[in-house]
């Protein structure tokens, strides 16, 4: 018989059982409570083999900071009791707490998935690979720490659908590759991390290059209540099958990050280039790089990705009862005001929204402001107001006449009360003369099928209903 670790432990413990049987009862009790001087003494001379293998153990550190969140803006906040750590754990290549997933439902009707390391029933990041100043602690992530892109489509009864990938993720479950999946911390030890050698712009320049072997390719998502399993391509080119989590169809795949895996898992995608950052779509499809070769569903249904031109259907999607909105119900007057060039920039002192538009020289731009009354309330992320600006003939293109960040259309991303007056602004180049035509729209979900937009979105497709128009001239 061989004598390995486990058989040695077995025989030593069995011997201890016999020895204890011969001790007087009072001695057995004292042993069980561990108060004898001899035992304390023994503690000083016996070194546990675990001392040399602490890499799997992380003490509790401070939690990840959560950015500002509001119930009515962007994703909203996590609904009480609607955060669930899924029973799925994937070991990391270098040990430590396993990888896991958490699903949260939000006040704006989103279903979002968070990925990280799991310890003591919590999802978090680790103080390794230059994250958290290498404190070797576990840092819990708040359920509210969810970026927009981490939220997939959600059907009428709350089933989430979405497939995501993080290429070049740090094994700390923190850092620049996560910034589109989890909002980054802006300061403090949580803001520390490492960057990939090829990362241009994703991470601060001051961050050190990630330690060799510390990066991962992670694919995860929700395939709906009917999904049973995913068959995926392994780094060696073979196929393997994993069961998905019952009820939500969750899967989680963690691979090493190297030339071979990058080539394997970005192969065939016409959309994504390079091997870095966050990617996502509603269902697995040919445009989306990834490892999934086939999804199997209940009742023998399946979707094979090979040779497929369209994304897999959202099997199990429960249709919305779409409330159709007529143009008459939402029609409103739009008022436009043109300010003198350079009268304000962005950020401004007038309390006018800047919509994230940044100008290199705002003082030279012409501020435009428009207002309108919203007649129909917006209470979730499936509905919004937006605008579209048609520029004069001969103006453009964006990046030349207009600043590179100029947007000719925009949609709201927060709840809006019926009757609320909305005020928006943009900035136009003074050199672009002529008549501009502004159309304000109500973006309502008009069909009950899931959309296939890359990234977020809770339903769709949307059909913009023009609710008001205005024109103005810059001379």
């Amino acid at each position, binding site marked *: 018989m061989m004598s390995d670790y486990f058989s040695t432990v077995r025989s030593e*413990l069995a011997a201890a059982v016999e020895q*204890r049987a011969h001790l007087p009862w009072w001695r057995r009790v004292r042993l069980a409570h*561990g108060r004898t001087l001899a035992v304390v003494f023994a503690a000083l001379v016996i070194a546990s083999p675990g001392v040399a293998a602490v890499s799997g153990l992380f*003490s509790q550190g401070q939690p990840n900071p959560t950015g500002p969140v509001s119930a009515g803006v962007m994703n909203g906040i996590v609904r009480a009791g609607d955060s669930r750590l899924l029973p799925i754990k994937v070991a990391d290549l270098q*040990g430590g707490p396993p990888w896991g997933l958490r699903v949260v439902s939000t006040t704006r009707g989103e279903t979002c998935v968070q990925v990280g390391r799991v310890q003591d029933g919590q999802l978090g990041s680790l103080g390794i690979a230059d994250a958290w100043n290498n404190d070797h602690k576990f840092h819990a992530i708040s359920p509210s720490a969810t970026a927009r892109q981490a939220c997939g489509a959600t059907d009428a009864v709350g089933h989430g659908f979405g497939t995501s990938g993080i290429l070049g993720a740090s094994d700390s479950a923190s850092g620049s590759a996560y910034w589109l999946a989890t909002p980054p911390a802006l300061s403090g030890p949580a803001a520390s991390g490492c960057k990939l050698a090829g990362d241009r712009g994703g991470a601060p320049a001051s961050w050190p290059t990630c330690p060799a072997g510390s990066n991962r390719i992670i694919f995860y998502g929700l395939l709906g209540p009917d999904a049973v399993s995913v068959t995926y391509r392994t780094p060696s080119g073979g196929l393997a099958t994993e069961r998905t989590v019952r009820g939500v169809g969750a899967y989680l795949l963690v691979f090493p990050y190297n030339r071979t895996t990058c080539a394997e898992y970005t192969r065939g995608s016409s959309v994504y280039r390079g091997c870095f950052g966050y990617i996502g779509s509603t269902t697995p499809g040919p445009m989306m790089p990834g490892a999934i070769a086939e999804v199997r569903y209940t009742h023998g249904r399946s979707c094979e990705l090979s040779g497929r031109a369209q994304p897999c259907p959202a099997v199990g999607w429960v249709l919305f009862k779409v409330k159709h909105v007529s143009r008459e119900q939402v029609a409103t007057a739009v008022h436009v005001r043109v300010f003198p060039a350079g009268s304000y920039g962005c950020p401004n002192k007038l309390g006018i929204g800047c919509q994230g538009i940044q100008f290199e020289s705002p003082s030279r731009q012409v501020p435009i402001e428009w207002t309108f009354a919203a007649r129909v309330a917006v209470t979730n992320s499936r509905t919004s107001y937006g605008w579209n600006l048609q520029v004069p003939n001969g103006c453009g293109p964006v990046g030349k006449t207009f600043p590179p960040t100029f947007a000719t259309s925009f949609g709201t991303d927060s709840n809006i009360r019926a009757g609320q007056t909305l005020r928006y602004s943009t900035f136009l180049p003074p050199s672009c003369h002529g008549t501009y035509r502004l159309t304000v729209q109500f973006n309502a979900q008009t069909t009950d099928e899931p959309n296939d937009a890359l990234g977020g979105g809770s339903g769709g497709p949307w059909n913009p209903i023009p609710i008001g128009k205005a024109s103005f001239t810059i001379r």
Partner: protein
Amino acid sequence: MGSDWDRDAELVARIGRGDAAAFERVYDRYLPLVLRWSLRETGNREVASDLAAETFAAALLASRRYRPSKGTVGTWLIGIARNKLRESRRAQRVEDSARRRLGLEPVVFTDEDFARVEELISLDGAAVGVLETLPPTLRDAVSLRVLDERSYEEVARELRCSELLARQRVSRGLRTMRSALEG
């Protein structure tokens, strides 16, 4: 209450009365479960093995306090493992107080043991059923190595093949079993 449950509860009671054979049966039966759980939680085979050893040492000390009415032996053991892991994380080293109380010497974990972890976590009740469905050459190799705890040299001698082929058969058998269990 099923017969397995009764039988295992009785085994734990016998451990409390100093029955070493009863301990060995509980250990053999539940080591794969405890090891699999520990590996899933720690992601490190050496730490998981250390934690499993400490769990069984603590179970030995607490055997008289086990109450079948509060759960199965498996649940009880995982509860102990969970507590031990929590204490270990606080201390940032694998808790070993139960083994120290029993006066046990630390056991060295070798490279061979890394492979042994993989073998052990493949073993549980369902796995034994799947084992029977393997082709005879693979089934015999897995049985000798995993159930009978024979060395590869002994497996090879028994099966009249090279040691390399014995290793391949065990590996293929375990892989097939894992696919069957997860498929």
